[in-house]
């Protein structure tokens, strides 16, 4: 933990440099790299989580003594809930669209074939 009386806030400066680097790296990965899309998404989301952790630990003093266990406990559970919300919604809501491109003029027989896939 940073000493309060220290003149230069080293922790903040390191955190800031890290977050700028991670942002640029994420932008580069997404826009310039030639990775497959799935890997890009995984990589940049990982970097986002890292940045969030930097904010929490280096800027927001989540482990500071004053507030007890509540902060990190709540943040941990909030993260779990956020994952449940996003992943759970995607898991349960991606059905019933067997032929999004079918449209009104396609024939029932074709639809049946697609459906059996």
């Amino acid at each position, binding site marked *: 933990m940073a000493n309060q009386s220290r003149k230069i806030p080293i922790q903040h400066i390191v955190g800031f440099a890290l977050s700028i680097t991670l942002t640029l790296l994420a932008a580069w990965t997404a826009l310039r790299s030639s990775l497959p899309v799935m890997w890009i998404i995984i990589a940049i989301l990982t970097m986002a989580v890292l940045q969030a952790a930097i904010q929490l630990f280096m800027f927001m003093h989540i482990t500071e003594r004053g507030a007890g266990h509540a902060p990190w406990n709540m943040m941990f559970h909030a993260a779990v809930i956020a994952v449940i919300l996003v992943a759970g919604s995607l898991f349960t809501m991606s059905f*019933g669209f*067997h032929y999004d491109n079918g*449209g009104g003029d396609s024939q029932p027989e074709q639809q049946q074939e697609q459906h059996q896939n």
Partner: protein
Amino acid sequence: MKHIRKYSKKWILLLSIPLILMLSGCSELTVMDPKGPVGEQQKDLIIYSLYFMMGIIVVVFVLFTFMVIKYRDKPGRDPKDYKPDMHGNKTIETIWTIIPVIIVTCLSIPTVNTLFDLEKPAESSAEEEPLVIYATAADWKWFFSYPEQGIETVDYLHIPKDRSVEFRLSSADSMSALWIPALGGQKYNMAGMQTTLYLQADENGVYQGRNSNFNGEGFAEQTFKVHAESKSEFNEWVKQTQHSAPKLTQSKYNNLLEPGILDDTKEFSSTHLQWVDHGSMEGSDYAVKRHWDAYGKKLHLKNGKNHNHE
């Protein structure tokens, strides 16, 4: 002592009501007396679970009655029977954690099996391709399109018996659910989406079908009759409809889509699938766009004869 008798009487009474009802009533309840293999499977599952549930209820009720009668505060009780500082017992608590786990496991396995079974046609008619029927709900009526036969019915349904029917469910507007309790469970009809429901009848008869998912004022009247008949009778009906029923035109169909309750059932010798499939994303706003203002109007619907096909 008078009190004890009073209480025990009450619980015996309470215990016996469900049992009596269960024994006498089960065979007459629609869901417990299914007319096809899908409903049969679901009924078996329900009965199977009922054994466990009755077991749990009996155990809890017996323990409960015992505790309440035995440990009431009354004069002349054995002081050894009172242990105010008892705070727990690891062994017994572990036992009654494990028992529910076992019960849940016993219930999960057949549930999951049945779930996967219900996603395909019934085994008893596996050699035959299922009959495809597009069941489209609209406020507050049902369109049944038979693409292979090229016919469409409104607010009633004919199916051959001993052949699986593959319902392709969608809705022209609000969310509904197709439910024919005598044949099996329901599934939602949703605009812009298509779900599949397999049902099959093994007995001739006329069954009640309905929308079971609340969707506005005419909800209670969104019912239909299911005529299950032999294959030859069904083919006869198809042929007759193909010959005698009028063609369904788009403007006629659009009129029928207007929210409201139809007085009579209808049949046509062509289907609406040629110009719109409400189960696709493109078809989801078809009805709403055309009848935007009509959905807000009230029918002032009263209990009574609201149509002739009840």
